[in-house]
């Protein structure tokens, strides 16, 4: 049985939207970060889908790079979260508002 590409793409879109929703409603900093990772993965899925569609290896290579960057970003981001936690002793997103004008 063959599956239309469109379904994969729709799945990717839905996962992305769920990631955005999570970014908006979660109150823990780490969970927000996890939603961002979810968004990245959704995009990865659509890349692989199109790589399959057009038989382009470059699509998969792009995913490879995205993964690398996500890894680096996760490391640094979590280090920042740790530093923020040390400074503010809280992980609540709403409490960390030092950038208020």
């Amino acid at each position, binding site marked *: 049985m063959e599956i239309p590409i469109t*379904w994969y793409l729709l799945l990717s879109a839905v996962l992305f939207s769920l990631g*955005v929703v999570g970014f908006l409603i979660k109150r823990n900093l780490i969970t927000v970060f*996890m939603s961002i990772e979810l968004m990245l993965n959704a995009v990865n899925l659509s890349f692989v889908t199109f790589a399959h569609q057009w038989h382009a290896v470059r699509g998969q290579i792009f995913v490879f790079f995205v993964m690398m960057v996500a890894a680096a970003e996760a490391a640094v981001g979590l280090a920042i*979260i*740790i530093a923020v936690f040390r400074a503010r002793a809280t992980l609540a997103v709403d409490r960390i508002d030092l950038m208020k004008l």
Partner: protein
Amino acid sequence: MHLILFFLFAGFCLAGAINLLVQSHPINSALSLIVVMTSLAVLYLLLGAEFLAAAQVIVYAGAIMVLFTFVVMLLNAGREERTMGSRTARKVGFPAVVAILGILATVILKAQGLGVAGLRDGITSTEELSRVLFHELLLPFEVTSVLILIAILGAVALARHGDGDPHGNQDPHGNGERTAGK
């Protein structure tokens, strides 16, 4: 067969994603995300990207999510507290999300010329991948390694104890005694 696999693991993805949103304890969210990652790896396999499937499991589920879990446990993050919500997030954010989903869906559904994916389609071999990677895209590859090095340095610099701060704000015994936050 292909269909069943697709529906099963797409279902796992969605379930995991929704669970991530619903759970209040971050560790549960992390575990749900691991489920999402792994399901995505299977989907990659269905699309013929064997190397990526492996990389997804090894890197994402095996390293990044483990890192997340470590941090959650290190910081002893507990259940989310009820803080004041942001009205803007509700009033502006949700319509925005709906709009994004709508636009994406419209474009996807209206697009012409998209084909199908089946088990008969070839799998992209690792050899193909590496050929392109190490021949044409060698420079980005090396730059990525530098990037990772920088990330390591940055993470170490950011996460260590600051000067003049012998114990930080940490609770050395992990008993939950803290001045603020929890």
